């Protein structure tokens, strides 16, 4: 809560942000989801976010390379064509903590986000969609992380 307040009071875009406040989905104003970012398993993750068990769904998509040349930077994307999506998450199964990023979806953006994450080893990666009605859907794929040249 504090960090957000600080941002709102000091950042260059103060006016803009305040103007936008009313339009924010209520969940976005919650404090940093520390428990979710500490979760080690999918079960812990959904529990910490107070949602139900996830089901695989073809309308959710995870994008990423089959092989990553370096685990320090692995491009991953999450998206869904399902209507009524509230949040989109990117998670890496074998990372010390699973959750990498959590995006709050509004009507003003497409439910489609891309970023880059660190991966310690080859692992399944997930796109997780949390719907307005509390249902949770996911997609997964395997990303192999290879050892780099020379090994030094």
């Amino acid at each position, binding site marked *: 809560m*504090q*960090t*957000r307040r*600080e*941002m709102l009071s*000091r*950042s*260059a*875009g103060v*006016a*803009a*942000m305040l*103007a*936008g*406040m009313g*339009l*924010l989905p209520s969940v*976005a104003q919650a404090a*940093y*989801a520390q428990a979710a*970012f500490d979760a080690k398993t999918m079960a812990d993750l959904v529990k910490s976010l107070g949602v139900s068990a996830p089901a695989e769904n073809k309308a959710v998509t995870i994008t990423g390379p089959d092989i990553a040349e370096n685990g*320090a*930077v*692995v*491009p991953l*994307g999450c998206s869904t064509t399902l209507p009524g999506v509230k949040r989109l998450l990117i998670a*890496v199964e074998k*990372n*010390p*903590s699973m*959750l*990498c*990023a*959590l*995006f*709050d*979806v*509004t*009507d*003003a*953006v*497409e439910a*489609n*986000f*891309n*970023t*880059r*994450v*660190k*991966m310690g080893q080859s692992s399944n990666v997930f796109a997780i969609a949390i719907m307005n009605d509390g249902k949770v859907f996911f997609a997964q794929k395997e990303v192999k992380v290879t050892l780099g040249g020379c090994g030094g």
Partner: protein
Amino acid sequence: MADPMRIRAQAAGDKATVRVLMSHEMETGQRKDASGKVIPAWFIQEVSAAHNGKVVMTAQWGPSVSKNPFLQFNVKGAKAGDKVSVSWVDNKGDKRTDEATVS
């Protein structure tokens, strides 16, 4: 103060694709320095984006987002000349806001 972001926003059809590069260490808190001391965690925790002043996206990040983060998203209804701004706040309270014009 943190270095500026690089924001590119390109309109295509009825939306604009926004690509952002942020200058940040994104230290996980799990690495050790040469002397064996743990390097404290230091990473962007919150990100938000606004279109012509209206917040369109908020996000929370963990330390596993890569160093010098990249983010791409699409803003519906954004056209050339519109303003897109992006803000972040890290776990130490450092922050940064930058703005770009949609081309």
